[in-house]
């Protein structure tokens, strides 16, 4: 059922690793996807050129992005349920927390080792092989979903408002000229925990502090999501 084809979409501001173009589903129904908590952080570029996270902007961005993702998925005909802390219950709480954190590490590892040639892991030989492991089944149990969708975005703006190309920086807070809005969307197959689709977004425009900006980011992120 899985069309296993390694496709790397080129061009534009997204770059996709696509191990599958279709999602598993039970006969006659839509694929079930649980949307995991959005990992978003917006920062302000201070006068000194340093970056500092802005909790209020982050909060706004998350709200808009969630809304935008919801409308995106509606157009893609998938059944999406939003992650809720309380649903895990005592038995699964720990595993689910670790899965979320672990995916953060895996996602960042992909950004570095899969997308940056200098940081590639030669043993992988160009293959796309990333996983959070079969513990992901816990999410399948809880949400009755076959997949989990993770979204991660980092962006920064000058304190006067976003004018031109913005700056992305690491926790070190160093401003890099000509920076970007950096993000990824990752689709995890819950039976195995394998990342079956990964889309990296990198661009210099778009303001996540307003609804339109969030909509365009969501569109980019979810472009070519398996059907």
């Amino acid at each position: 059922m899985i069309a296993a084809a390694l496709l790397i979409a080129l061009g534009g501001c997204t770059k996709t690793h696509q191990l599958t173009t279709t999602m598993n589903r039970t006969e006659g129904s839509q694929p079930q996807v649980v949307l995991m908590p959005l990992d978003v952080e917006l920062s302000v570029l201070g006068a000194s050129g340093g970056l500092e996270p802005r909790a209020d902007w982050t909060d706004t961005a998350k709200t808009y992005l969630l809304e935008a993702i919801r409308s995106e998925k509606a157009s893609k005909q998938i059944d999406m349920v939003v992650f809720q802390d309380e649903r895990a219950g005592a038995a699964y709480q720990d595993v689910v927390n670790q899965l979320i954190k672990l995916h953060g590490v895996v996602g960042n590892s992909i950004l570095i080792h899969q997308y940056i040639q200098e940081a590639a892991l030669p043993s992988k030989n160009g293959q796309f092989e990333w996983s959070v492991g079969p513990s992901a089944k816990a999410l399948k149990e809880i949400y009755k979903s076959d997949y989990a969708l993770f979204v991660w975005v980092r962006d920064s703006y000058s304190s006067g408002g976003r004018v031109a190309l913005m700056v992305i920086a690491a926790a070190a807070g160093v401003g890099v000229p000509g920076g970007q809005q950096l993000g990824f969307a990752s689709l995890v197959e819950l039976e195995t925990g394998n990342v079956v689709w990964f889309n990296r977004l990198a661009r210099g425009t778009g303001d996540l502090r307003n609804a339109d900006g969030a909509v365009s980011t969501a569109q980019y992120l979810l472009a070519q999501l398996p059907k």
Partner: protein
Amino acid sequence: MTRFAASLRRLAAVAIVLGLSACTAYSLVPPMANDVANFRVEPDIAWNKANKLRVDSSAALASWTADGPGLNNVIFIGGVKDGTPVLTVQGDTGGTKDALVFRKDMSPSEIVELWEAAITKLNQTSIAKASNIQPTQFGGMPGFKFEFSYTNKDEVERSGLGYAAVKDGRLYMIFYSGTKLHHYGLRLASAQKMMETAQIRG
């Protein structure tokens, strides 16, 4: 590619004990006999050797990863000299040096204690614990092995396995660690086999 140097630096926080400096490259370690940091080992899978480390030691050092340093990692510490710190972080002036000193008369229990303190300091975590210390042959001499568990700032729990021995007054250790949920177990068999059959060539 330099625009992602910034995101690389962010990842420094994700790496476990031995971090990466920006734009670190990896070299392929093929599955065959390898000389590394005063050891000779024979991995049965391919690994990736970090070309730049951000820690120092009087010992020869090396760091390998199979799936990415945030996910699993093997550290080779080949011969810490008596009276020197087991590891120091480059650029750290904050008293790490005195606190992590290896002494050749240390018992395995004390060396493991030292390792707990090292992981605690390097990862700025308060939750680091060794367990199940057992005598075993290592590098062709009487040594010991131990299991490990820790959680650092990224809140991901990691498991570890170490093999060590003191030879001619110097400490030799190989320590494998990885995410408890998946990546530790993923390469454990290969890592353990490699550590069990390692030779010390220092």
